[in-house]
């Protein structure tokens, strides 16, 4: 019996030509399907990889066998395992003459290799040959590989042939050639810049597919340089008009929209071309109006086109009528039940308010609903909108909300983003100093390690310079409030390193400035900082420098500095530190303590962080030393500009156009060794501004001067100690980002980046009352009132706009009570209603897994199954096995259905047209075993597929209950 069953299974697999793989491979896939954990899956694949490694290396593997091995390698690689040992075999397979094998080879290499892989060079030759083939399928396969594999270096090798293919008789080839050129443009714009006319020609191609493909490169080209394509505006408008009027072949229709993907691409291009160009925009108004009128809102794709039209309208020169239409469409999005459309609506609103800020007012409650929605995606989008509409009047509410959200998320990437947005808004619109400092403290406390170092430096600069006003009193008030809050915060455990740096710097600079705190107290606090468990070297460096400054100020004032024991032990510890930077600072402090007050005052003047430090860039004081060294036989210093002049000029041009990193490799590979005396230099030193240091075998004197001249930003021309520091600094800059964090003394930190900051200081209008309002809003559970208040604080008026505020709040209850009530009620109701809507309609095949409970019970699937299997010429064993394996399925399916959540969010928006389309040829699709009877034109076929599925045994384990449900069912 067992044996018979096996035969049945084999038959099921063997009788069907479609799968075409060996039993071994099917077994592998099956066992992966049955694997219950990732670890088990990994074990299976590792075993498979091992066996492939052995077998693929055997001599004389038949080609067909090899093809399967390659596909199995692809499978292993797809599941995340390394199959690099087989890459070379895939490459070899591309050389094969038989198309099926060649195609497999190309597929495998495009999946295996990235564009900078060493093996690519072995494929280029084959690609060249295949591009010349007279079989267009071979050419297509080669072009697909070209798109993935050809990198900047190899573009010239295939470019002429690809260009030739632009006029190939087969449209599929022309289309792929265009896409290949597009890829080339992305890799290296210069390589195809002379081919722009070809793209223009292809725009008039007879085949709409080729025309559609041409829009991709044109979009990129227009992005880069709008003005050279203004002449195409009329053609694009013409094409869009024709597309919208359904002049394209029916096959390009999608869900009863006329070529929507091409429309979207064209709208994107028009948005670019019309941006800030009244004349060009004038040509577009008509067709855009048509699209707004014609676009149906019921289908998802219709909304996609509509959204793109809104983007286009908001980008081109404004037109009142179109803006109205766009606003209307946006409000439909926002009022929709679908989260997707709400999301698009919020985005569209963000675009429209740039032109007309008043549009937002109408949608305030909808926006607040989105803000409070449990859906994170929607929430973030709404924050983006709020970010765009922040003004000095609502900054407190918005930033407060942002920080509240920031504290509660764990996604570091987004946390960073939202933190930097908070900082930006706070810097731009801060109503009061206290608020600003508090906000910054919160941001640093909760996201300190994530925010950019620049933000910390900005904060330090702001505290040092004030808000750009010449009001000394306000400045010192800002500083002392900062010092107060920092001393308070220092008591808290686990502060982020960056925040500690800011605290140390501010305490060092201004801790004793207003005389409120004795220096010993501040020094003690700073010592505590360094003793914390997680204190890193940078913080220690900031702390010791801060101590140094406080001591310096004390000495300059003529007071005696009492060295605290913990401070002394800190100095001792740091002067034996592994970090030379810390050692340096500790020794500097010790040296400073021995100086007399006048010397100290000139080394460390009080509140001088904003002063510019004069630097003698020519280093005249070293002239004698240089002269002496040269006389002693040292090689004279060659300035960088002269050195770079020696290597190829054209190389440098392109260098500045692209990323330096990608060129480093090419540099070494292609540069011929030059017989000039400085031939070492071009290879070692990369002439980008980042690499200041170069290990050129010159005398110390020369390298030192060159370093110094490269780093004019480093302060401390006067003290000898600083002179030594230059070394450290250079090293730091070489490996890290060019920041100031640990490199130079804190006093020079801000002075070097002294720029005008255009921050304006706005006095808060009723900030307290709004705070209260905020508070009360949080306490009150009542929805509408609280929302309206929030709305008022977000959208509504400033003190100056009271009238407007009044009207808006008046209007709010009228127009919005329904809206306001709805969310509470609608949220509980909506799932039901949507179900109700869905249930009576024709069973929706495209509906994503929405169970249709009514029909599952009607028929016994197995009766039907037997009935269908009966007439097929299959031996009885199969029948048997179908039954045996099928017996457990009804329960399984039921279980699958019950735990299946209701349909995906898009189901509501899914067009009725889609349903129609699908319900025409597939009427019933309920439980998976039933649909086999009616679905598709070949019921027996699909039934066999189901049966086979069970034979193979991937599903009935219960691990994968949904496996053989049709994707579209």
């Amino acid at each position, binding site marked *: 019996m067992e044996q018979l069953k096996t035969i049945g299974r084999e038959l099921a697999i063997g009788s069907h030509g479609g799968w075409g793989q060996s039993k071994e491979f099917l077994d592998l896939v099956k066992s992966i399907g049955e694997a219950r954990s990732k670890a088990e899956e990994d074990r299976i694949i590792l075993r498979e990889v091992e066996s492939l490694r052995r077998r693929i290396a055997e001599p004389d593997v038949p080609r067909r066998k090899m093809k399967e091995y390659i596909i199995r390698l*692809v499978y292993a690689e797809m599941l995340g395992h390394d199959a690099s040992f087989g890459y070379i075999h895939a490459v070899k397979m591309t050389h094969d003459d038989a198309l099926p094998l060649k195609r497999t080879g190309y597929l495998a290499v495009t999946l295996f290799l990235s564009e900078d892989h060493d093996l690519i060079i072995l494929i280029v030759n084959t690609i060249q040959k295949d591009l010349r083939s007279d079989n267009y399928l071979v050419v297509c396969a080669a072009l697909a590989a070209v798109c993935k594999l050809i990198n900047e270096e190899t573009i010239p090798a295939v470019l002429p042939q690809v260009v030739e293919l632009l006029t190939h008789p087969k449209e599929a080839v022309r289309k792929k050639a265009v896409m290949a050129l597009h890829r080339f443009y992305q890799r290296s714009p210069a390589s195809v810049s002379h081919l722009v006319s070809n793209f223009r020609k292809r725009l008039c191609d007879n085949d709409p597919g080729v025309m*559609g493909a041409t829009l991709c490169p044109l979009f990129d080209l227009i992005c880069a340089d709008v003005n050279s394509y203004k002449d195409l505006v009329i053609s694009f408008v013409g094409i869009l008009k024709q597309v919208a009027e359904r002049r394209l072949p029916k096959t390009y229709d999608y869900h009863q929209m006329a070529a929507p993907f091409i429309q979207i691409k064209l709208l994107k291009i028009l948005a670019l071309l019309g941006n800030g160009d009244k004349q060009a925009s004038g040509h577009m108004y008509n067709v855009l109006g048509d699209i707004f009128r014609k676009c149906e809102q019921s289908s998802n794709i219709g909304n*996609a086109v509509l959204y793109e039209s809104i983007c286009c309208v908001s980008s081109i020169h404004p037109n009142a009528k179109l803006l109205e239409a766009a606003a209307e469409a946006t409000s439909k999005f926002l009022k929709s039940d679908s989260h*997707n459309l709400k999301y698009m609506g919020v985005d569209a609103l963000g675009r429209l308010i740039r032109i007309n800020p008043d549009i937002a007012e109408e949608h305030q409650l909808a926006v607040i609903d989105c803000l409070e929605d449990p859906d994170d995606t929607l929430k973030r989008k709404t924050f983006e909108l709020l970010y765009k509409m922040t003004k000095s009047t609502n900054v407190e509410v918005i930033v407060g909300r942002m920080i509240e959200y920031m504290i509660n998320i764990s996604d570091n990437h987004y946390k960073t983003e939202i933190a930097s947005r908070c900082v930006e808004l706070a810097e731009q619109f801060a109503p009061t100093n206290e608020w600003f400092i508090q906000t910054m403290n919160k941001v640093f406390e909760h996201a300190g390690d994530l925010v950019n170092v620049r933000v910390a430096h900005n904060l330090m600069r702001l505290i040092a310079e004030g808000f750009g006003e010449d009001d000394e009193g306000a400045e010192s008030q800002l500083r002392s409030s900062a010092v107060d809050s920092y001393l308070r915060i220092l008591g808290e455990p686990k502060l982020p390193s960056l925040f500690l740096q800011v605290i140390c710097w501010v305490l060092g600079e201004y801790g004793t400035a207003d005389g409120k705190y004795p220096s010993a107290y501040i020094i003690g606090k700073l010592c505590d900082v360094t003793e914390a468990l997680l204190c890193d070297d940078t913080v220690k460096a900031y702390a010791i420098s801060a101590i140094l400054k406080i001591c310096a100020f004390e000495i300059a004032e003529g007071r005696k500095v009492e060295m605290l024991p913990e401070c002394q032990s800190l100095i001792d510890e740091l002067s034996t530190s592994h970090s030379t930077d810390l050692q340096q600072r500790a020794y500097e402090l010790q040296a400073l303590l021995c100086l007399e007050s006048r010397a100290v005052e000139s080394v460390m003047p009080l509140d001088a962080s904003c002063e510019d430090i004069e630097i003698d860039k020519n280093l005249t004081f070293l002239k004698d030393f240089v002269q002496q060294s040269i006389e002693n036989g040292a090689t004279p210093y060659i300035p960088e500009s002269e050195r770079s002049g020696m290597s190829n000029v054209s190389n440098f041009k392109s260098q500045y156009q692209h990323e330096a990193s990608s060129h480093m490799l090419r540099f070494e590979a292609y540069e011929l060794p030059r017989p000039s005396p400085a031939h070492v230099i071009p290879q070692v030193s990369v002439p980008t501004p980042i690499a200041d240091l170069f290990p050129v075998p010159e005398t110390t004197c020369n390298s030192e001067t060159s370093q110094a001249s490269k780093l004019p930003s480093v302060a401390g021309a006067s003290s000898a100690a600083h002179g030594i520091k230059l070394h450290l600094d250079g090293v730091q800059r070489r490996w890290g980002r060019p920041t100031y964090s640990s490199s130079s003394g804190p006093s020079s930190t801000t002075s070097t980046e002294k720029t005008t900051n255009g921050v304006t200081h706005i006095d808060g209008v009723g900030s307290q009352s709004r705070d209260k309002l905020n508070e009360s809003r949080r306490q009150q559970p009542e929805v509408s009132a609280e929302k309206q208040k929030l709305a008022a604080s977000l959208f509504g008026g400033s003190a100056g706009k009271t009238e407007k505020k009044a009207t808006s709040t008046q209007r709010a209850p009228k127009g919005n009570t329904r809206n306001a009530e709805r969310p509470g009620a609608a949220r509980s109701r909506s799932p039901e209603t949507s179900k109700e809507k869905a249930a009576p309609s024709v069973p929706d095949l495209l509906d994503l897994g929405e169970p249709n409970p009514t029909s599952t019970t009607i028929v016994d699937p197995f009766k039907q199954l037997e009935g269908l299997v009966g007439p097929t010429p299959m031996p009885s064993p199969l029948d048997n096995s179908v039954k045996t394996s099928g017996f457990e399925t009804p329960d399984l399916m039921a279980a699958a259905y019950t735990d299946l959540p209701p349909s995906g969010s898009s189901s509501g928006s899914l067009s009725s047209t889609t349903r129609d389309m699908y319900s025409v040829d597939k009427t019933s699709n309920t439980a998976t075993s039933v649909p086999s009877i009616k679905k598709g034109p070949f019921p027996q076929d699909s039934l066999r597929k189901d049966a086979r599925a069970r034979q193979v045994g991937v599903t009935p384990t219960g691990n994968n209950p949904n496996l053989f449900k049709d994707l579209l069912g």
Partner: protein
Amino acid sequence: MIHFVILISRQGKVRLTKWYSPYQQKERSTVIRELSGLILSRGPKLCNFVEWKGYKVVYRRYASLYFCMCIDPDDNELEILEIIHHFVEILDRYFGSVCELDLIFNFHKAYYILDEILIAGELQESSKKAVARLIAAQDSLVETAKEEAGSISNMISQAI
């Protein structure tokens, strides 16, 4: 531009991956792990989009299979949603009521089809018919070149 396409099952198993931007093998694993954690846990009524590391990932669920595409932040999400559907409709037409098993066992064919729809991360063909024609042309060539794979009797003898 589409940076990658991933098909994952509801259990988080990878069914198909296609990378249009360079990702190392290690990065790929982390990407898949992160995204499946992010997407599979989302409720059914929520947006079909998630923001992820400065990109956006658009996903759509068909039965137990999630189709995910990662795009730039300024791309049109609804369009991508329809590109996914376009792909599924073509798969459906090709396999005849496509199911997850079809994709599991014929992933290479799914790759061929995907290659006809997307190239270098852009939509190259929006006509289902054009894609179907090209795939059929390729398949017919494959069929003619194929020798008869093991006959039924062969299989039976093997099994016994």
